[in-house]
């Protein structure tokens, strides 16, 4: 009767959220990220103990903190990965505005923790680095602007995003935080490249980047010293790179054994910038190659999935997020093996650091949301071919 009077219970429009999420998510990337986070905890057990001892804290204090922040980061990541591209875009742009405001007020309210560059807000129990949170928001906004610029009669998004990039890069360079500045510039470049930058322009931009690097070398002593250290023929064993190189050599193929490493006692940044050296020393080349393979897989697989994507915004924003993630990992590891000059850059998910791991969670959550498999209207391709 009820059915006759009120009609049948309306079936929900789509399938339930979680099963659909599970069906469409890029499971390989998801597992890769979870694995990286697990490795990060494993290495934190080794690498953060000296820092805790130095600060007079219980030995695994920083591991527990990392578990907490990592948990938050993973939750954020899963939540974000359930969003639709439109939701990602809105959230990304709002997040960008918030982070940008935080960056603007940094010189007045921030602290440098005695490291010579004002990059952090001190929140008492933890610190917060706005430039880490700026990156995913910036990539999403740039992707949106570029995608809009492609439309006939669309806004001049390329110009807007370029101006925005220059403003942010200058702000970061003033801090000085050349590493993040490079990363922002690189993200913009990659998005522009995929959005169809003319090759002539790419060449010009590349030469401008070189000129900028030379100018920075001449203007900033901090920058020049690092480059000089990189270019000098032999390694000074008392520098960070020297210790890192020595640690990798000591580790060999299978490592010196868990907890037997020494580099973590010598390097002040062993738990962040040089965590790969700790991994190489204690667990050997095997683990390092595993880590490299994981980063490579996450990045390349995401790019591969984005190749099939038809929506310009999704494609561009996804490309930016995946490349920023991959390049950050690559720069961090490249520094440790002296392929690149020294830069303070964390290894996403593996390095210790609340800001870093949560920001990485946000970025990867957005990336996962964008790389979910969606109906792409492949039939259109068939029509397209037939029309020709």
């Amino acid at each position, binding site marked *: 009767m009820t059915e006759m009077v009120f009609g049948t219970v309306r079936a929900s429009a789509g399938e339930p959220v979680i099963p659909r999420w599970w069906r469409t998510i890029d499971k390989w990337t998801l597992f890769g990220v979870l694995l990286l986070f697990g490795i990060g905890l494993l290495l934190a057990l080794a690498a953060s103990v000296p820092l805790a001892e130095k600060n007079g804290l219980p030995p695994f204090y920083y591991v527990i903190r990392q578990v907490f922040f990592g948990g938050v980061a993973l939750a954020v990541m899963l939540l974000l990965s359930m969003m639709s591209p439109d939701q990602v875009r809105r959230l990304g742009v709002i997040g960008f505005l918030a982070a940008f405001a935080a960056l603007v007020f940094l010189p007045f309210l921030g602290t440098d923790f005695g490291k010579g560059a004002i990059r952090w807000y001190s929140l008492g129990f933890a610190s917060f680095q706005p430039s880490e949170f700026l990156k995913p928001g910036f990539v999403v906004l740039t992707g949106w602007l570029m995608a809009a610029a492609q439309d006939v009669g669309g806004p001049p998004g390329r110009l807007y995003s370029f101006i925005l990039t220059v403003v942010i890069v200058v702000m970061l360079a003033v801090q000085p935080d050349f590493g993040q500045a490079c990363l922002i510039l690189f993200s913009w470049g990659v998005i522009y490249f995929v959005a*169809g930058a003319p090759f002539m322009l790419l060449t010009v931009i590349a030469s401008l980047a070189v000129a900028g690097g030379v100018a920075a070398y001449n203007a900033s002593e901090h920058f020049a010293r690092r480059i000089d250290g990189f270019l000098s*023929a032999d390694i*000074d064993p008392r520098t960070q790179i020297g210790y890192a190189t020595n640690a990798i050599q000591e580790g060999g193929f299978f490592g010196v054994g868990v907890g037997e490493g020494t580099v973590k006692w010598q390097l002040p940044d062993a738990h962040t910038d040089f965590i790969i050296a700790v991994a190489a020393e204690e667990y050997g080349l095997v683990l390092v190659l595993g880590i490299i393979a994981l980063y490579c897989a996450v*990045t390349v697989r995401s790019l591969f999935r984005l190749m099939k994507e038809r929506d310009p915004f999704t494609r561009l924003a996804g490309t930016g997020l995946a490349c920023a993630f*991959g390049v950050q990992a690559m720069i961090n590891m490249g520094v440790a093996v002296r392929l690149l000059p020294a830069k303070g850059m964390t290894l996403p998910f593996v390095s210790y650091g609340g800001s870093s791991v949560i920001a990485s969670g946000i970025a990867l959550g957005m990336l996962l949301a964008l790389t979910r498999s969606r109906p792409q209207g492949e039939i259109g391709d068939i029509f397209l071919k037939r029309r020709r």
Partner: protein
Amino acid sequence: MTRIPLRPLARILSARNRGENPDVIERENIRLRNEAVRDKARLRAEGRLLVLGVLFVAAFGAVGARMGLLAATVPVEPEVSMGGNSILAQRADIVDRQGRVLATNLVTHSLYAQPRLMVDPQGSAKKLVQIFPDLDEKRLVADFTGAKKFLWLRKRISPEQMQMVHEIGDPGLLFGPREMRLYPNGSLAAHVLGGASFGREGVHSAEVIGTAGVEKTFDGWLRDPANNGAPLQLSLDLTVQSTVEDVLAGGMKLMNAKGAAAVLMDVHTGEVVALASLPDFDPNTRPQPLVKGDPSDSPLFNRAIQGVYELGSTFKIFAVGQALELGLVNPQTMIDTKSPMIWGRHRIRDFHNYGAQLSVTEVIAKSSNVGTAHIALMIGADRQQAFFKSLGLMEPVPLEIAEAAAGKPILPKRWPDITTITTSYGHGISDSPLHLAAAYATMTNGGTRVVPTLLKTDKVQKGERVISEATSVKVRDLLRQVVVRGTASMGEVPGYSVAGKTGTADKTKPNGGYYEDKVVTTFASVFPSTDPKYVLIVSLDEPVETSGTEPRRTAGWTSVPVGAEIIRRVAPLLGLRPSVEPVATAAVTLAGN
């Protein structure tokens, strides 16, 4: 505003003719164009994403390969690859004008410990304390068993100590070669040489840097590998320097002086052959500078250069020489010497009253303040200052020694006539003995400016002309008379025809005024007077000669005999032949009477 043409124009125009809305057609057209653009962009993006993917694989591959390469190489000991930062240990020798060594290097060893390599920290610490009693055993044990990986124990050890440490036999006690600076002559020429100490230190070598004297001035040159280890040759003569120091030390003791300085300089080349300041020190173990009190009490204080005093009557020859040069007087001109001379509220007195008038020759020989004052007034303040400047008495002597800049003359702030008067007999203006040496050389060498140097040159300085050749000859004769029958009669050295001038100046109190019984006595001499070769300045600080019934403090009784003894001993070493007094000088003497 730019007008965008409606597209496709043909269809829109025909639609308008039919009265339909052309917007629909246009919108449809835009949709189609958008789709075409997107398809094109997607195809291009596909290719570019592939390129990105390949680049990432290649880059990660490079990082991985590099990791593998590094992991496959054997780690080297960090000390071995100490490149880019090596310390150059070779420091050139310093030699005297005849090539005899004044400063050289000696290889010794430093001792350091690497506690991680030690087998018996407690035992080693105990034995180390037996060798080096000033080490603290408790601290050593704490260091050896603590977290330290490296610590210096001794910067320099002797071969015997090194052998004893060897015999402890602990592999954690290690030696590094250490080149140290050695001054084989001990305190000889200490103030000229200065000293050296370690700069940057590494296990394998340490930098030696000059801290004072020529070691500091020529630090860059001595360490410059481009010189191929060529020594630095000074103008000093080791034998002469030694003799000067010996005699000066003896004189200082006899005259109960608290300090003494001597400068011996070639009047033509400006080469400083000997430069002594007493008390002195051993540059091998250079004492610490005084942190409080009068710096001139430290043995580090170089009286010959830094010690600026009112040099008294030695200045009179400048006033007289200038007056001769200007043609205001000749040696026979009679000068008013009525003592005391009253000038404003000042009274100028002579040591004795010499009567109403003296000839210029006698003014110098008897050292009359009043006579010199009258001559100075003839010259006037402006010309006097210009003359002092041309003699180099107004600025520090540019000698090649780190302390030379500190020897800054103390000049009167204003220059009224009373200053002209007092400076003419050396009061109210303070200069160092080195200033005096340069000025006397200029006055007697024929009248050209001489600037002292510590480097061997053997080249006659062709400086600017200050006085004429003829005036210079007259000046020599006047100075000779001071020794023959004036205040410096004890300065006569048979055969060497010494000429000179004495100066006794009351020392100034730190807060103004003069001491009654503290003087600086100076004997400025040139020899031989017929053709001057060398100038010698001897200065004694607070001398008292007590052989007589009452203490005598004048230069004639204190500095002059010391100077004469130095000339007697040094002249043969300098290769001067004793000669008979020429008759012409005596003729001048007779004419003066």
